[in-house]
């Protein structure tokens, strides 16, 4: 008990405390006096900081929704349709993501470049003009973030789908529930905890992402995370970076709490044990 509590203290509580404390210092570096001036600077420029914060949160949420849309059927298929080759398919979902994420970003670049495979396919079905491209738009960033974090959502939802007992579905069927009703009232609510778990592990990094946007986003490539990174790498202003990190952290927590409350209202009883 004691060692684990110490570990928690050293790896979670102390760093969080330091983050808040650094944010109150005067930059550059972290040996200035406590003045809180960086907070004042941030508050004085809502058109920059607020704008980017909203952009990052919206993009993170959109990417999460996209991963749920793709990962849900994938998880269902993994659980119900490919029992024999399941480990193989699971491995196939994960393996591409064991390489450097930079490689994945450049793979996406080739895919969505003008004349690339994806754009060629979209042109083929009449959805895009030749020469159109998603590259250097916010859509490219959205697609990339969804792709990057997809395996996490697949895993979270797979675990949830796997836990659904077939007899529950049989019972619903015997009571006259059609396919849609079984999905809407039985299966979907039972996967809500998986979605929430997936939300936490996909939304949090997606909302803080900046490398993907910088390479693929063109003039829409500026994120809240970009700003944090630049304050450290370009001007050694750790206090402002720390203050912004606290803001991002709180914003993410508030948003996660809001989504959780909404889901609980939408699926009563789906989140037992939670308050």
């Amino acid at each position, binding site marked *: 008990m004691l060692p684990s509590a110490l570990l928690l203290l050293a790896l979670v509580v102390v760093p969080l405390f330091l983050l808040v404390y650094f944010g109150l210092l005067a*930059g*550059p570096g972290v040996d200035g006096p406590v003045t809180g001036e960086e907070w004042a600077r941030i508050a004085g420029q809502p*058109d*920059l900081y607020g*704008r*980017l914060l909203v952009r990052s949160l919206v993009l993170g949420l959109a990417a999460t929704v996209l991963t749920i849309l793709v990962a849900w059927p994938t998880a269902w298929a993994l659980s119900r349709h490919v029992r024999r080759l399941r480990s193989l398919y*699971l491995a196939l979902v*994960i393996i591409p*993501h*064991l*390489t*450097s*994420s930079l490689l994945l970003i450049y793979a996406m*670049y080739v895919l969505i*470049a*003008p004349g690339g495979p994806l754009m060629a396919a979209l042109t083929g079905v009449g959805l895009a003009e030749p020469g159109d*491209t998603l*590259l*250097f738009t916010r859509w490219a960033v959205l697609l990339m973030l969804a792709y990057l974090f997809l*395996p*996490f959502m697949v*895993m979270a939802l*797979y*675990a949830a789908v*796997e*836990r659904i007992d077939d007899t529950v579905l049989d019972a619903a069927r015997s009571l006259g529930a059609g396919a849609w009703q079984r999905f809407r009232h039985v299966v979907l609510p039972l996967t809500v905890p998986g979605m929430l778990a997936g939300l936490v592990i996909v939304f949090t990094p997606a909302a803080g992402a900046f490398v993907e946007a*910088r*390479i693929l986003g*063109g*003039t829409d*490539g*500026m994120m809240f995370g*970009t*700003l944090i990174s*630049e*304050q450290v790498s*370009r*001007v*050694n*202003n750790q206090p402002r970076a720390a203050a912004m990190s606290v803001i991002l952290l709180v914003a993410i927590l508030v948003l996660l709490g809001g989504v959780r409350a909404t889901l609980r209202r939408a699926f009563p009883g789906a989140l037992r044990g939670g308050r």
Partner: protein
Amino acid sequence: MKTRRYASLLALALAGALMLAACAEDEADDVDEVTDDVDETTDDVDDTTDEDAALPFEGETLTVLNWNDYGSDQDYAIAGFEERTGATVEHVYHSGGEELREVLRTGGVGEIDVALPNPTYVEQMQEEGTIEAVDPDLLDNLDGVYDDFLDIDDIYVDGELYGVPWVWGSTGLTYNTEHFDQEPTSWGVLWDDEWEGQVGFMDSPVEAVMLTALYLGDDPHDPDLDAVREALIDMRPNVELYWGSSDDWTRAFTTEAISVGNFWAGDAGSMMEEGEPVGYVIPEEGAAGWLSTWSVVADAPNVELAHAWIDWMISEEFLVEWAEDPTGNAPAPANELAQEQLSEDVKARIQAYPEQVEDLAIMGSLSQEEQQAYTDLLAEVKAGVQ
């Protein structure tokens, strides 16, 4: 049973995440490792001859602090120096200006003879006492160095020379020759509606501010930042990409996502050599440039040998050999006599044109406040703040 399966899945996901992290760290390690390496060159002095008497530094060792693979550690750089002096050359590597200063502050002084700090750092390092003044009388080859470079304030402290110009480069107007009927002559093309959505603009606060100040006819070292911000916001509809690395630029350029922008001379020259339709020009307003300078480290074990090394580095002989080495990654030489000996192909590849030198605004040292202001300014522009 089910809990266990859930747990093993989580473990799998965790293992995946850990592997990802490990891979990323490996890459970082690979880069870091070279910085700690001390490259010991063998001292196989040819002792069959009786030239020993002619070699002034026989048996002595010179320690050089530089980036890895930046000219001074080429075989011919070391062999040439060892033949002339009889001394042995050792390298210590760093991976950036801050690390260079750190190495000297923490034990490098007294051990290392010469280093290559950016002129931006010269004044701070002189104050820190990690470099000392160079004696120009010991550098015969200083005569060949462009006067424009020797006139730069940043390499002097209290009138004494602390940084000896070695190689230079610029960030000029780079364009697709297939998309331009004639060579553009002004930065104004970046603001011209004709190139809407086709500009690749460097994501660097200093370069952005200096370029814009030059375009506006302002002082590139002390511009009116509000005017600069306004101009950069005006340019935004033309910008397709704020590029962060040479790779980003090259990829966007070769796929014709961008047609024009500001880009580094050396990298533009390499693209030309590969047959890409690249044009590179220093516009009439001038352009931002950089300079690498050699300094003698304070308390150097062998001051005379250090001067001999710097004199060798800026010599026509070495600079020409380096420039002509197709894999040497040489920038343009700061020695005009060396430049004159280069073939037209080499001049094009490394963009070694003396007429560009006088139009350069060499990036100087910025105060913390200026760095902060420049960084915040470009962030606002990139974020689309009006």
